[in-house]
């Protein structure tokens, strides 16, 4: 038996994508293995039904292979896949609620709750307090703003890509991101000084 060292990570997404378009099964599998987990976690933030999410992600990949000859070669692979997953899940909602008229991508809410980095053991109490508070504020943001932040900072999409995914123009996407952070900073500044006060008075 040969135990091979996988060199897969050295090949970039677009090379794999273009080989896939030409019918290379190995490239398809590598892209699948590379992105599946991330796509599932994004899907889970849009739908509480974990099993259906996996189904949707697999369907997205199925279509990628079956219709590979009609794929564009110059795409940002990650963005393309994320946005396909989003559309799939929206379609799922459509089918499940046949009698509901309003089912479009805009209607699926971003459900993910940001959590706090557990590894704060080394940090002092004040930091923990601040982080927890900030986390609460983040989770209270409107779903769209949260999703934009998630896509920007966790899936590393550009503002253009986020705009395309959320079906809004560049300015709106940029506003979503900005407003999110702005609200946060405003509320947070007030709260921060409060915390510092409480903290210093308890010393």
């Amino acid at each position, binding site marked *: *038996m040969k135990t091979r060292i996988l060199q897969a990570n050295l090949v970039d997404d677009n090379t794999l994508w273009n080989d896939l378009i030409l019918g290379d099964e190995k490239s398809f599998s590598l892209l699948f293995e590379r992105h599946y987990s991330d796509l599932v976690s994004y899907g889970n933030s849009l739908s509480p039904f974990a099993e259906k999410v996996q189904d949707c992600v697999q369907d997205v990949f199925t279509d990628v292979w079956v219709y590979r000859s009609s794929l564009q070669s110059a795409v940002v692979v990650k963005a393309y896949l994320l946005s396909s997953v989003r559309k799939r899940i929206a379609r799922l909602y459509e089918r499940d609620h046949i009698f509901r008229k309003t089912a479009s991508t805009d209607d699926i809410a971003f459900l993910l709750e940001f959590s706090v980095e557990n590894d704060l053991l080394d940090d002092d109490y004040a930091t923990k307090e601040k982080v927890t508070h900030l986390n609460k504020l983040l989770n209270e943001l409107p779903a769209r703003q949260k999703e934009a932040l998630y896509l920007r900072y966790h899936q590393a999409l550009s503002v253009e890509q986020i705009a395309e995914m959320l079906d809004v123009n560049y300015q709106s996407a940029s506003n979503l991101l900005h407003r999110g952070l702005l609200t946060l900073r405003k509320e947070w500044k007030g709260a921060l000084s409060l915390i510092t006060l409480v903290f210093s008075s308890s010393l």
Partner: protein
Amino acid sequence: MQKRNKYTEIEDFLSDESFQSWILTNVDQDGWEEWTLESRQRAKLVEDARLMLLAMKVPDTELTKSDIHRALQSTWLKIREKENKKTVQGLNLSVFRKRFLTAIAATLVIGLAASWYYNNYSKTENNIVTYKELIDKNSEGLVEQTNNSNKPQIITLSDGSSVLLQPDSKLSYPKIFTGNERKVYLSGEGFFEISKNPKKPFFVYANEIVTKVVGTSFRVKAYSDQPDVEILVRTGKVKVKSNELSSKSNDEEIVLLPNQALRFLRNDMKFNKITNITQDPVLVQSVGNIEQLSFEFNDIPVSQILETIEQAYLVDIDYPKNKLSDCHLTTSLSDQPLTEKLKIVCKSIGGNTSFEMNGNQIIITSEGCN
């Protein structure tokens, strides 16, 4: 790292991968710590960005490598299903379209048909080679195995090669291969995985054509009552030519590479090479289980590997589940016949692991992995 000197907003930091890895994994490759301390204003910004990152953690998805592998397998199955549906729909549509033309073409067809039958009839006498003729020609004692069941059957040859014989198919082969060649005779359809031996090439005789290989996997479909013979290659390289028994045979030899196929039109004695098998509705529809499954395993539980083998060869594998529950393997079994696959798995598990094969039943004995 010059760009960071222009950072003025928290956002700039949040999307900086190097910054992220400093905060979240404590890997400070670019000297962030020092850089931060250079200015007080900068330190404030960095601190805010740090808190933000710490507060924005996303729950990890708990997908293991084997979860992902399983998902990939089921995606390939979905793909085949969809491709089949697509081509069936395509065919239906074209049948429907053709109806419009039927009336116009009808008169023409009668005339053509008459001459076609005539041609066919006269050709049949000298070209068509049957399985029976092939067998009669061979003087060595052959074993014949016929699959009358409705499921594929696995046959292991004396050289370790395996053949997955489809229903209504027959394979004749010598009990032990002697001499410098390995020859088998097929009627119907089989998927061959040949053990490598460049000194003893392997020949499959099927109707009018001969397929020669050294070590590879491929499918031959040659039913005596069907108008064509198909060869589809999965791994390795295969050479195909027509049998000299067939009177019109020429020396044309065709080389097939992985995922290429060949259709031999028996009446015209013509080879059609198919380089893109996914575009061929007939081939796409007849892909078997074994050709869809991936045998590339990367840190996958033994139980799952054995399950894949069971699905591919339609065999039952009995093994000590408890003893092997914690064993994971990384291996590539793609280009190996069944017995070779089992040998590799057993050897990799170690601990006196061995297997026994009895028809469709396989028993693995093991004391666990080392």
